[in-house]
């Protein structure tokens, strides 16, 4: 009797506002598995990343080896396909599956590196503007407005045209152009956080500005930053592909998916699979990254707006 009474009292007092319901730790598996989009998207990205990293071990052939005698062999499921080249060969007789796997390397490498640069630039600007306000904030807002008014693809094309296309140039250009979203979000969050009590107490305790920004403000922004980074990586990958497709990105013979589609254009009537295979690969990777990003956003802000 006493026993039931006690559990019953617990039931009533468990949800008192004073002792708010225990929030499970942010990224525990129990919460992640409630978000199938995150599991599916993250899973696909993980597999593609593994393939990209271990490309030399996974790829059946050398992606650069040309064999003029074995040009445009169709994939294995078409008539005339062979087991040796599961996805066929391209117009220069290179194994398409191997080029596709190495292409994932280029996409992911450029996507991650460019967004790393953009993230550092945007976060720094946003932190400065949001934390200091006033003049500093005006400069940050101004730079963001200028950046937003420049058509990113056009500027990227122009810079690549001036400096010549290479992976490094594409990474730098995209890194220098894609920081705006980081800056905007970090700026407004940093402005909010810097007004909170514990930041003031850190300030009162004599913590340096750098310490406050990096140890107190930044960790609070981490979840949001991860979500933006995910979306921006997907967008950077698409942009690299578009630049390479237009001939002003990664240069041949490097296997970039955008470039592969561009090179196959003249063969599209007879060998549309040359375009379809890298196109589908690109769409799948970007879709998976965005799916994971959506899942992450739901995980972080459960009201699911925006």
């Amino acid at each position, binding site marked *: 009797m006493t026993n*039931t*009474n006690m559990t*019953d*009292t617990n*039931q*009533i*007092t*468990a*949800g*008192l*506002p*004073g002792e708010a*319901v225990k929030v499970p730790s942010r990224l525990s598996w129990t919460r992640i598995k409630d978000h199938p989009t995150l599991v599916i998207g993250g899973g696909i990205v993980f597999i593609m990343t593994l393939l990209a990293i271990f490309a030399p071990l996974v790829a059946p052939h050398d992606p650069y080896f040309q064999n003029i005698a074995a040009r445009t062999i169709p994939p294995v499921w078409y008539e005339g396909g062979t087991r040796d080249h599961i996805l066929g060969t391209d117009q220069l007789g290179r194994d398409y599956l191997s080029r596709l796997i190495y292409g994932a390397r280029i996409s992911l490498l450029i996507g991650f590196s460019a967004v790393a640069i953009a993230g550092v630039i945007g976060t720094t600007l946003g932190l400065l503007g949001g934390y200091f306000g006033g003049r500093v904030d005006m400069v940050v807002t101004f730079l963001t407005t200028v950046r937003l008014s420049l058509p990113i693809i056009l500027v990227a094309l122009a810079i690549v045209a001036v400096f010549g296309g290479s992976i490094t140039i594409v990474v730098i250009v995209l890194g220098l152009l894609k920081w705006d979203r980081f800056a905007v979000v970090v700026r407004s969050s940093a402005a909010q956080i810097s007004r909170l009590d514990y930041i003031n107490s850190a300030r009162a305790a004599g913590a340096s500005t750098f310490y406050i920004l990096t140890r107190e403000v930044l960790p609070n922004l981490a979840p949001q930053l991860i979500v933006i980074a995910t979306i921006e990586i997907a967008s950077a990958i698409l942009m690299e592909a578009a630049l390479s497709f237009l001939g002003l990105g990664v240069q041949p013979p490097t296997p970039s998916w955008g470039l592969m589609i561009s090179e196959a254009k003249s063969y599209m009537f007879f060998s549309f699979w040359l375009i379809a295979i890298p196109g589908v690969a690109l769409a799948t990777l970007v879709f998976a990254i965005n799916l994971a990003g959506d899942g992450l956003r739901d995980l972080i802000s*459960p009201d699911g707006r925006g």
Partner: protein
Amino acid sequence: MTALLTVDDLKVDIKTRSGTLHAVRGLSFTVNAGETLCIVGESGCGKSITSLALMGLLPRTAQRSAARLRFGDTDLTDARHARKVRGNDMVMIFQEPMTALNPAFPIGDQLTEAYLYHKGGTKAAARARAIEMLDLVGIGSPAERLSQFPHQLSGGLRQRVMIAMALMTDPKLLIADEPTTALDVTIQAQILRLLRDLQQKLGIAVIFITHDLGLVSRIADRVMVMYAGAMVEEGTAAEIFGAPRHPYTRALIDCIPQPGKTERGAPLGTIAGVVPSLIGTVQGCAFRTRCAFARTDCAASVPERAEGSHRWICIHADHPARMTETA
């Protein structure tokens, strides 16, 4: 008297991340034609949810169930029938007049909308009716008001417009969910007087939802006190204020400052503790954690007691304080 609204075992469950929240737990009551029923309780006791449930306006995450929910001869659990009653015979006004009107349309359009939809007729007829109603709620130069936008009106005026809008279809029941809470004190009194006058003039039944027991004493025919999603006491205004039986009702009444009795500057009564979480089941009396007269068996099931029209749910047959006084 004929029952206009019959509510039997009304329940509202809301799905949340931490479990199902039972916002309303088996509520039964009736409203007779032409009478004013006040539903009273602290915020979060489920009184507003109850009003939304009656109107069928619950958010999609909320699940309503009832053994019986009838308006006159109409079964409100049938969505098709309910829609003919809602906004027509049974209308509602809300707490926030500032946001309850659509900023994008002139008030004339918003006034005539429900009338045209439910009653049909010409736009001119609807306009004439709107002018008549605005006049009835005491808005000057009503014809000119029709083309004004909500942001051009003060809060008090907007609440009058809301009332006029509700009266357009000549309703039988008006549900008012804290209609004066968001207004200034002087405006509050005006709106309250207006509601009381209209109720007497037009013979409309009113369900008045409020947390302010002081206000209840001025308008109620009958009072229902709610706590943690359930009824704790119900009776005529005289019964509730004259002889409250439930310790919670008594505590609420003690919180009202009374002219002459309450000393200036003296602290008003408060009820210690907080409302329990409504997630999961509550066994026994939900108020026992804050009740000065709680006994161990309050955790077991507590009987519903009745004395004529006066009902209450408590382990004690009468209010314990009074029993000791008389003893």
